[in-house]
């Protein structure tokens, strides 16, 4: 280590009473942490403060039949239902695929094999694809390609147009990494001893996974699902061209119907309102509803995740 000795830090660390540099360093980094939390608190407080007055049961359950820019009549029920439906459809698709991928990565794959590394790389990459590119993908793949192929020969496009089904599938592709990572984490938290005990009793690998590992990992799988729902619930960019509608008289009844969406409605209210001052209360209340949805889901995920991590630490 003679060559690297120039890089070694100074080693005369003696206590010199009040250490100003140490105090300043801790203070600056601590203040930065505090500043971030303060911004978060300001955003939340601002939205709650301005939105609470309009946020009522009538507002939540009112339909959008009436003028949606009128403070006294506007309701957001169709948007809440639209968002819930698209998120539900998405969950049905993404959770099984995500869980199975995580099972492969933790239970079957060799961590050094090329296939494993490529799958991991793809998962990480999928997490970083811009949301608007998912929108383009949904339009180019699901609507034009698959929908177009299903419509082959038909005069009117039935499948090949924006629909809640395509929006949900697009979101499922987007949230796949979230589910995989959360499930994987909880699978890794299970002690190897549990698997070994099951195998030693004569259970096959598949039986061990289905009857021992997966039930044990249920909290983690739930976290993944919840995180995916929280993330997808607030996303607007991927559904702009794949299914969200500015206004619909009816709720979506078939998978090929378009839908109104809470996040998209926030976008409309804040950019296309005829009189921003008058619609401000509805805007804040709609944002509040959206935030309540996504943040409460995130909070649940955080709590479940903290428990999983605690268990992991206890197990090892």
């Amino acid at each position, binding site marked *: 280590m003679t060559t690297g000795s120039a890089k070694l830090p100074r080693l005369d660390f003696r206590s010199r009473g009040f250490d100003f540099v140490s105090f300043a360093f801790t203070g600056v980094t601590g203040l930065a942490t505090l500043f*971030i939390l303060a911004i978060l608190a300001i955003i939340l407080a601002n939205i709650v403060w301005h939105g609470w007055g309009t946020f009522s049961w009538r507002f939540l359950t009112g339909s959008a039949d009436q003028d949606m820019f009128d403070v006294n009549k506007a309701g957001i029920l169709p948007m809440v239902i639209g968002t819930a439906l698209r998120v539900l459809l998405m969950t049905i698709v993404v959770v099984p695929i995500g869980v199975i991928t995580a099972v492969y990565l933790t239970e079957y794959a060799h961590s050094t094999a090329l296939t494993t590394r490529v799958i991991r790389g793809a998962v990480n990459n999928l997490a970083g694809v811009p949301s608007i590119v998912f929108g383009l993908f949904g339009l180019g793949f699901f609507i034009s390609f698959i929908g177009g192929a299903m419509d082959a020969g038909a005069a009117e496009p039935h499948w090949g147009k924006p629909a809640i089904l395509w929006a949900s599938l697009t979101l499922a592709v987007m949230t796949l990494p979230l589910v995989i990572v959360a499930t994987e984490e909880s699978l890794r938290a299970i002690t190897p001893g549990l698997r070994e005990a099951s195998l030693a009793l004569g259970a096959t690998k598949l039986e061990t996974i289905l009857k021992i590992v997966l039930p044990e990992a249920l909290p983690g799988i739930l976290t993944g699902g919840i995180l995916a729902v929280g993330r997808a619930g607030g996303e607007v960019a991927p559904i702009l061209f794949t299914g969200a509608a500015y206004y619909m008289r009816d709720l979506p009844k078939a998978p090929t119907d378009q839908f109104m969406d809470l996040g998209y409605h926030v976008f409309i209210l804040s950019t296309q309102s005829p009189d921003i001052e008058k619609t401000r209360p509805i805007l804040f209340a709609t944002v509040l509803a959206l935030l309540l949805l996504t943040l409460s889901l995130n909070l649940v995920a955080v709590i479940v995740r903290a428990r999983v991590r605690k268990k992991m630490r206890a197990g090892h």
Partner: protein
Amino acid sequence: MNNVPTSAKRTVGWMGIHRGHKARPVEWLAEKFIFLVSLTAILMVFLIFVFVAREALPLALGQMNSAAARPAISTEEFDKLKPPEQQLYLELTPAEFKRMDKEALLALAEVRQDEAKEAPKDKDAKVNTTEWRYLFGAHEWSDSRPEDRYVWQPIGRIHKYNLWPLIIGSLKTTAVALIFSVPLALAAAIYVSQLSSPTLKEWLKPAIEMLSGVPSVVLGFFGLIVMATFLQSVFGYQSRLNAFVAGIALGLAVIPVVFSIAEDALTSVPRSYTQAALALGASKWQAAWQIVLPAAAPGVFAAVVLGFGRAIGETMVVLMASGNASIMSLSLFDSTRSITATIAAELAEAVFGGHHYRMLFLIGALLFIVTFLTNLAGDLIMHRLKGRLEGRAK
């Protein structure tokens, strides 16, 4: 460990499937099924690229012509062309071309001829604006001011598709976002991972990560309605919505990304490093600043790279808070428009399959390539860092 007999190695069969499984067909099938499903992520990344690029392909290959006055040939000449050439000339998709009979095609060719007769005769009208040199090179249009040599203006008599205003717009907002968020997020990551008490850490980490639970449309709304007015009253610039406001709002979306990854990298530095430094008499901050931070430096760099990827790909924040004017300007206080916001704002109006539509897919594909490379780089750096730290810790 080098002289393990080869027979021992062979018991691990193809792709990690053990020989014993062949005796249990259900196990074997299940394993194959699980493996196939796990390939979905790879398939999806591949499909995203293929299908975004597919829509942009005719443009990239120079098969589209956006000129107001396109060259036309007479119907007799058209009749002599081979079918693929006819399809290319009329700019039809293969499916559309198949559906049409000969008369319909001739009618289209005639329409095309009439269009050419009525088209304006000036030199701008003959320009095919979708060629690469018009996308990236300067061009003096006869009907605009000299400073508009770089202009994105897809609607109008001449469709101008210069990409520089959008690229500069994206980079400007991203730069502001990173300058604002990276120091904050890194400082917070150092504090949370190295200096705070374990109990405090258990509260701080999820609290900061809550910021990532705020949907981007809400951050965009906050930037547009609340922050824009506030920042304008503080800094007193002209246009209320600009790259600066959008950048700050975007920074709020970047903070949790940079924080999480940097905190992860700092935490993955073995505790023994810190303990050794403390035992030598270092204070907590000396251990954090001189020992842990240098050891985790690649991870911190990866955090910034991935934060960049997040910032350049973010749509709703920029769409709502940047003002959306595609002005070629380097000033942070001018209204700007990014690549992502352009796609979001214009795709709904673009004619399906037209050159504007394909142009938006082209910039989407460029965006995908940029984020793909940044993600790959960030991922590789993190992977190597972890390998190195774990190797040393043993």
